[in-house]
């Protein structure tokens, strides 16, 4: 056997244990999901129906609602999380005492168990006796019903998401802030640039690779939100917290409609793919490596 062939064999053997698992548990399911989305399949016979699932979804009110809720959820969480993370990181890095203690506390929610936290959330936002409303009722006469109200439930889950990830963003920004070239900052300070100008013209551009990474991570994290809905609200009240992953889940496992459920997943997959590609293409405009 020549050297080249031997290397191929060796290489494949090394990656095999991990790659086979990846192949079976990630790659094949992904392709299969797309294939199923073109079929009518309710756990019995499978029938190829082309784009029909997609066309039906386009005119489905509940799909429209889940789609809208997902978009709202992304808009209500991603910018807030990133701005909070960056803002706190900037000020803490510059001025605060006890930096490492702040960092530790802020990051803790990221390690929290989602089920445990959902139960805590249900108690915190309990409409009549929960501490949040106890506080609000001290100042005003009526307080929102939070998870039991179709107007507030999604916002309440947004708060949970921001709570879990703001500290995570902050910690990553803190690490990145250390890499901002200090000679640039000093030169700007000598030239009399204001703090604000230094932030906009030096710090933000040097942080752009980190922002790029955090933006994609947070977008995907919010697009795939599912657990809080399944644990706390069951998509309700009404369909006010039904998001795409949740709808896909109940369509498959409650209504046994695998084709439609897979079409929903595939749409979400395309959205994520689109965002990722768009970001990669757009990043050379604003990311400075």
């Amino acid at each position, binding site marked *: 056997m020549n050297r*080249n062939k031997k*290397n*191929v064999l060796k290489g494949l053997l090394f990656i095999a244990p991990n790659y086979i*698992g990846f192949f079976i548990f990630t790659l094949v399911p992904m392709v299969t999901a797309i294939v199923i989305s073109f079929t009518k399949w309710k756990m019995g016979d499978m029938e190829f129906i082309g784009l029909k699932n997609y066309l039906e979804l386009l005119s489905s009110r509940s799909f429209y609602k889940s789609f809208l809720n997902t978009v709202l959820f992304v808009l209500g969480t991603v910018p807030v999380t990133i701005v909070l993370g960056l803002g706190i990181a900037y000020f803490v890095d510059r001025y605060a005492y006890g930096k490492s203690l702040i960092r530790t506390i802020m990051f803790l929610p990221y390690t929290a168990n989602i089920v445990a936290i959902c139960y805590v959330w249900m108690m915190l936002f309990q409409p009549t006796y929960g*501490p949040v409303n106890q506080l609000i009722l001290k100042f005003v006469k009526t307080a929102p019903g939070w998870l039991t109200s179709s107007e507030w439930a999604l916002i309440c889950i947004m708060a949970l998401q921001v709570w879990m990830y703001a*500290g995570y963003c902050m910690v990553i920004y803190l690490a990145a802030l250390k890499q901002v070239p200090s000679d640039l900052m000093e030169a700007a300070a000598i030239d009399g640039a204001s703090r604000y100008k230094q932030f906009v013209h030096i710090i933000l551009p040097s942080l752009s690779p980190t922002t790029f990474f955090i933006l994609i991570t947070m977008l995907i994290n919010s697009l795939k939100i599912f657990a809080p809905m399944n644990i706390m609200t069951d998509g309700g009240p009404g369909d006010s917290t039904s998001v795409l992953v949740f709808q896909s889940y109940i369509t498959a496992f409650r209504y046994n409609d695998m084709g439609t459920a897979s079409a929903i997943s595939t749409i979400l997959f395309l959205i*994520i793919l689109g965002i990722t590609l768009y970001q990669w293409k757009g990043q050379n405009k604003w990311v400075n490596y």
Partner: protein
Amino acid sequence: MMEQNRKVKKIIVTVLSFLICAIVFFPIVYMISNSFKVELDIFKSPFHIIPEKFVNNYNSVWNGAYDFVRFYLNSLKVTAISVCGLVITSLLAAYGFSKIKYKGRDILFLVYMATLMIPTQLTMIPRFMIYKELGIYNTHWALILPGMTTAFGTFLLRQFMISIPYEMNEAAKIDGAGELRILFQILLPLLKPGIITLVLISIVWSWNDYENAMLFLTDKNLFTIPLGLISFMDETGKQYSLIMAAAVSAALPPMILFLFGQRYFVEGLAKGAVKG
């Protein structure tokens, strides 16, 4: 004057930061506080952070009257096996993707990376079928096997591995060492930070994994902590004091790990980790 100004600023920012920390920390404190309360005091108005009457709800959770101990052991088992497996498969794959040169390697790696961004929630249905087909549905293997073969592990360790110069391999080869020996005897000590990072992060993810457990486990005897908490809710008849004691018990291990391994977490997550 300038100095003093700066000091005032620092104090203001510090106070504000700790205020934010207090808000962030509050749900965790509230959880711990309620775990020591009598059921009747939990929704008392006004609420007290320090319980008026301390009770040890942990005793009831852990004394074996409920299945919580079993859920805990299940989680320990699943997490331990998947993380050990993940470290080994990832080490091998990272080596195969960075230290052995062969045709097609980079294409294989690209496929890998392309899927790193795709959330597992999108493949629930096919995995459900595949697991049934493989006979691992409703067994711990449904969590362990996928857990020990994530692309994330390979990606992370490869990041650490490419910073080790290839000359190490060449020198070792001249001395007659095989690839496995190079990996486990020469590179392994240098990869320690990377491995610790991977171990810590994947313990937290595996321990907290709710979605996969929910999808693939139906037998209550097999439940891991996240599912266990939910069934505990029914078992105790929605007794929040007991649930909070169980929740604290469930949430504690990842938090403690984080407290000890902070810098590894930050490094690993900043290296381009995307939770799948």
